[in-house]
């Protein structure tokens, strides 16, 4: 049983994992890039080692250095978090080869599920329904894909084989625009995952993105912890998740959960994973892909089940049986997560960088914030713009929404722009309140500007506030000028000196 865990990640998820380790009594080893010397994960860990310069490929993607550090520091386990090396079977295999426990699935399962083409083929064999698309293929050329596309039909999606998080994903409406989109998808996939392979998938319209958290131990137990509703996305990036989904009833939950378990069993899965489904308007569901790692949005499942998923991951990685059987998993209340990104919702969600000068985190009953930033921390352009996750729990969905509203209103971050106003507007949207949305809602039927117009108008107050702030600034600069005048007293001195010498 391992006793020291190296966390091969940064930001909020590194902090999350360090917390779990500390609460179990395991020692923690952080790794960091030059940009992250004062990051929270470095401050909280028992040990910390520099990886290299800020760019990910020189730091957090340096599998070789990370394994060296694990060896040198005596870490006998590695938790990869999400992103970076989390779904790289070569990394998982290298850990195993070095005698280090990889807290996650076996390399073979990562390989099978990580390559989206193989994943589809595998689950199809196990009888799991999939979205129509390119099957059984690894490295298809652009020509192959262009040939296959008309059989799948438009609109379709180009997706990165090594993908996740919407990176390297493109929507294609016609064959004509496909060559250019293939190029840009491959470019983005290459830059995000070091792997430019892509595949095609039919675009299911009006669908919801529903995912199931599963957990498997080495004793043959595979359990699901219920679903997460992840339909609110922009550019295939999740923005807000909730559990449970308003679209599922107990029967559907049970059926989808069993399929999720079956999909995991098909690759002899171990540890935590997520099965993503598309659920169409008629409640048909299709396997999309499996994320063979801890998911960003895992806390909402923790809030409604009371299960600490990271602690269970560690437990299972230590060779012990799951603490819960399927019948022990009970759902209580409703949880929502808003991803707080450093980006400007009023300027096309452009990423925003800078030093956080002030921060006030919402607290109180039913509120959880997972973050890796604090006042004084610098948001650099090198990493993901997600700087915090605001998670709330309520007895009902309505109570969770009301609680999220008050928490968002309390949250202050100064120094970078954030998408908090986007989430505030979403919480006031009638469509969202009614639970009536699909994966295209944000992009096609939600306009921040329009939605804002229907909200309470404080234009007059804003005018007074702006005027007083401007007035204060004018006064302050006037004072500085005056002080400079006083201080620029060399000439007075000179004058005095002259008089003295007269």
């Amino acid at each position, binding site marked *: 049983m391992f006793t020291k865990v190296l966390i091969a990640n940064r930001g909020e998820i590194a902090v999350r994992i360090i917390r779990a380790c500390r609460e179990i009594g395991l020692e923690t080893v952080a790794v960091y890039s030059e940009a992250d010397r004062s990051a929270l994960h470095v401050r909280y860990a028992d040990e910390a080692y520099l990886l290299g310069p800020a760019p990910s490929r020189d730091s957090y993607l340096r599998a070789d250095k990370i394994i060296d550090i694990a060896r040198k520091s005596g870490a006998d386990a590695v938790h990869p978090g999400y992103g970076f090396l989390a779904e790289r079977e070569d990394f998982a295999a290298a850990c195993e080869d070095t005698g280090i426990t990889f807290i996650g699935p076996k390399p073979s399962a990562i390989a099978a599920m990580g390559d989206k083409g193989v994943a589809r083929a595998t689950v199809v064999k196990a009888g799991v329904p999939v979205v129509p698309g390119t099957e059984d293929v690894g490295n298809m050329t652009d020509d192959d894909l262009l040939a296959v596309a008309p059989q799948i039909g438009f609109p379709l999606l180009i997706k990165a084989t090594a993908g996740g998080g919407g990176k390297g994903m493109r929507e294609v409406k016609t064959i004509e625009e496909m060559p250019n989109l293939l190029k840009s998808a491959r470019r983005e996939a290459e830059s995000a995952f070091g792997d430019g392979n892509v595949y095609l998938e039919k675009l299911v319209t009006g669908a919801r993105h529903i995912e199931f958290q599963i957990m498997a131990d080495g004793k043959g137990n595979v359990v699901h912890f219920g679903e997460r509703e992840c339909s609110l996305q922009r550019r295939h990036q999740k923005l807000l998740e909730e559990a449970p989904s308003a679209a599922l009833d107990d029967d559907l939950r049970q059926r989808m959960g069993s399929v999720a378990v079956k999909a995991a069993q098909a690759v002899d899965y171990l540890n935590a994973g997520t099965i993503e489904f598309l659920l169409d308007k008629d409640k048909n569901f299709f396997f999309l892909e499996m994320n063979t790692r801890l998911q960003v949005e895992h806390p909402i499942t923790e809030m409604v089940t009371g299960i600490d998923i990271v602690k269970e991951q560690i437990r299972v990685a230590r060779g012990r049986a799951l603490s819960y059987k399927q019948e022990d998993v009970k759902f209580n209340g409703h949880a929502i997560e808003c991803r707080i990104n450093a980006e400007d919702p009023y*300027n096309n969600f452009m990423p925003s960088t800078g030093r956080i000068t002030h921060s006030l985190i919402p607290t109180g009953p039913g509120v959880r914030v997972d973050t890796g930033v604090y006042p004084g921390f610098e948001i650099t352009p090198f990493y993901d713009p997600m700087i915090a996750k605001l998670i709330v729990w309520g007895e009902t969905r309505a109570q969770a929404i009301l609680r999220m509203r008050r928490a968002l209103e309390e949250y202050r971050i*100064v120094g970078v722009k954030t998408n908090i106003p986007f989430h505030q507007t979403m919480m006031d949207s009638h469509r969202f309140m009614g639970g009536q949305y699909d994966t295209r809602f944000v992009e096609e039927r939600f306009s921040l500007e329009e939605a804002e117009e229907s909200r309470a108008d*404080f234009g007059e107050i804003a005018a007074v506030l702006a005027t007083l702030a401007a007035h204060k600034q004018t006064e302050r600069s006037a004072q500085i000028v005056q002080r400079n005048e006083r201080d620029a007293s060399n000439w007075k001195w000179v004058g005095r000196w002259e008089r003295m010498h007269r």
Partner: protein
Amino acid sequence: MKYITTVEGKEYTIEVLDDHHIILNGKTMLVDFVSVDGQPVFSMIVDGKSYEAIIQEGEPEWDVLLRGRLYPALVEDEREKRLKTASGGAVEGGEYQLKAPMPGLIVTVLVTEEQEVTKGQVLLILESMKMQNELKAPRDGIVGRIRIKAGESVEQKQPLLSLH
């Protein structure tokens, strides 16, 4: 000091009398306006109502983020504004400088010098925070000098190209 402040197309005449009194559109009001911890976070109590906003100077407007909504507010000195109006208003058009909104890597430049572009057309792609961001033309125009090329790293606010 007397100001004319424009928010969402509406003009407000606001005279600041002293630290606690203003005249808003002719009505005298008692205001209690303080900065929290020296930050651009401001708390204002007026008529018993408590408001808090993040207020930052933009160009040319002040950005007031209040109760989950952004109010860009143009604050003008009344005298200046009158002079400007008398002289026939600001000059429209002219050259536009596209600057990098954040540090990053230029992935592609999609236009060439002297090319005609329309409002909303993508001019170039800038990668930052693992995202590819499209920088678009803010208005119709002709591309002037392009100062960068694909593969180049740029600093925040670095001029990328001009539009005339």
